[in-house]
């Protein structure tokens, strides 16, 4: 994108006009190339070798084994669930804060970001207190009569989903808040005065105008959820294995670096693929607006 911009600017322009954007982008580009692109490529390269020979062995191992398909499926399920939960919980919170005229709105927004300030490790110990069989959640549900057997969320995928949703909710709220804030509240008022109940006005107007924010928030949460390591490792334990914890296991415990890089590459490809499809799907809904 940068290169293209520089090239078009270069057509028939004085050399200095090309020079300036190049100069401006150069440091960022350099950092990006050295610290992101190069390590990624070398990582990919590792996965393409088996005992000194170029080979697809590590990829074949992954795709021919039901276990790894399940692992990938579980990881994507985790990402989708967390995204949906944060979206469902985040929309009302972001909306209410965006529409608040009180001076406490800013304070509330800061409060929602507090979970981000706590390290994943500390937070996970908090979840332990809640999630164990003799923990707060189980005892509360028992006392309310909602369950008749003690229940354990610790070391389960459900626990990981809940914990990650809590961790990532602030990012969703922050992203959506910015978008809602930029949508004129009179649009909802107009819809309401034309006969739409508030929830319908929100659905037909505000949410239809926020696909950019919803895409951004969802992709942010999704990609962080499926690449999260600390929370799945600490809350999920041994049973809720996901791609990230398996990559760690292959790298650290089993020292099988080529396979670990193959796992990383596969995860990366799926993230990109899903992000692309998702963005496209949402974009089409708002294509009408874009047409103008």
């Amino acid at each position, binding site marked *: 994108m940068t290169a293209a911009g520089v090239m078009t600017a270069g057509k028939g322009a004085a050399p200095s006009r090309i020079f300036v954007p190049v100069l401006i982008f150069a440091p960022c580009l350099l950092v990006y190339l050295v610290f992101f692109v190069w390590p990624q490529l070398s990582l990919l390269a590792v996965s393409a070798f088996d005992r000194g020979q170029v080979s697809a062995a590590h990829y074949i191992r992954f795709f021919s084994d039901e276990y790894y398909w399940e692992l990938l499926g579980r990881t994507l399920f985790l990402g989708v669930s967390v995204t949906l939960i944060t979206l469902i919980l985040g929309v009302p919170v972001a909306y209410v804060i965006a529409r608040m005229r009180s001076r406490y709105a800013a304070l509330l927004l800061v409060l929602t970001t507090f979970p981000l300030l706590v390290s994943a490790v500390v937070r996970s110990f908090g979840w332990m207190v809640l999630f164990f069989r003799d923990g707060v959640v189980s005892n509360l549900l028992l006392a309310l009569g909602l369950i008749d057997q003690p229940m354990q969320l610790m070391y389960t995928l459900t626990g990981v989903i809940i914990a990650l949703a809590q961790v990532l909710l602030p990012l969703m709220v922050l992203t959506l808040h910015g978008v809602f804030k930029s949508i*004129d509240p*009179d*649009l909802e*008022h*107009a*819809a*309401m*005065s*034309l*006969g*739409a*109940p*508030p929830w*319908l*006005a929100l659905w037909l*107007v505000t949410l*239809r*105008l926020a696909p950019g924010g919803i895409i951004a928030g969802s992709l942010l949460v999704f990609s962080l959820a499926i690449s999260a390591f600390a929370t799945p490792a600490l809350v999920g334990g041994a049973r809720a294995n996901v791609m990230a914890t398996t990559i760690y296991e292959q790298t650290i415990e089993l020292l099988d670096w080529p396979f670990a890089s193959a796992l990383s590459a596969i995860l990366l490809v799926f993230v990109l693929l899903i992000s692309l499809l998702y963005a496209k799907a949402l974009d089409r809904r*708002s294509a*009408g*607006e874009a*047409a*103008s």
Partner: protein
Amino acid sequence: MEIELRNLAKAYGAVQVVNDLSFSLDKGEMIALLGPSGCGKTTTLRMVAGFIKPPAGEILLRGRDVTGLPPHKRDTGLVFQNYALFPHMTVAENIAFGLVRRGVPRDEQKVRIAAMIDKLKLTGLEGRYPKQLSGGQQQRVAVARALVINPAILLLDEPFSNLDAKLRESTGIELRRIQRELGLTSIFVTHDQSEAMAIADKIAVMNGGIIEQLGSATEIYEAPATRFVAEFIGKANFLNGFVAERSASGVAIDLESDGRLVLPAAKVRPELRDVEVMIRPENVALSASPTENAVAGVVEVVSYQGATAHVIMRLPGGQSLIAECRGRDAGALKPGERVHATLDPQFVAVFGR
């Protein structure tokens, strides 16, 4: 009575935005809520629309108490200052929105939308998105969207303020024509007095959350009830004076700037002592020699405007007085010249001080 507001009130914190406000409209009447920003006119409109719940007072729409009803159950048509057109919908979809919500059959929708498009001269723009329209076109779509649902009352929130001056006038007249034609009861919020006077049947001049005066355009202009109204509407001169004599035939007021006015007794409330005398520039007549009900002063500035001219005089005691005269007479007046200004008692208003 089509709509009645009874003792509405609303405060934000310690600020009383609307205070004990009441008025009513008959079918087909249009009222303008006129006042400076912060006077409570928009809050009043939004209470009628249902976006703000009044902590005190009642709103009756066609005899039904709607005070507690949410906006979507009120049957109001609202035109917003910035039009609030749905950017992701076409003109036709925008207009159809209210009909769909009301479950109007598809065939009838088509007929009514077509009628509105025709009435508001939007033919050919049905498939466009709001961003592709000019300001005037957007405004007409907003009106069409509000009218197509046949609301019990039409609410207009500064509907012309985003249009340029020329378009504003013609659009106002056009809107008035449609409103009359459909017999729509309307409330219209504006800070522009000429807009209010040109369009509305009744004007409520608002200030600090209360209605200072409610009346026709003539009443408000000719006989302002308060100093605020006099100052807010049109141009006005204020001269300090005190009541010197009261008799059956009239009240004599001595002005600080040397001069005595004798006014009909009805013009000066009995409790008044120190007063301010208001007169509009066009009711001040200039002459070279002293007359009754006149003050003398020195011409300071003559501002020629074609049809008319404004003459600013300095009076003894330091107050100034603006007189309006015909443009062709202005040439005779030179700054520094001493003139006499006659105040027509019929057009004088007196306020306490």
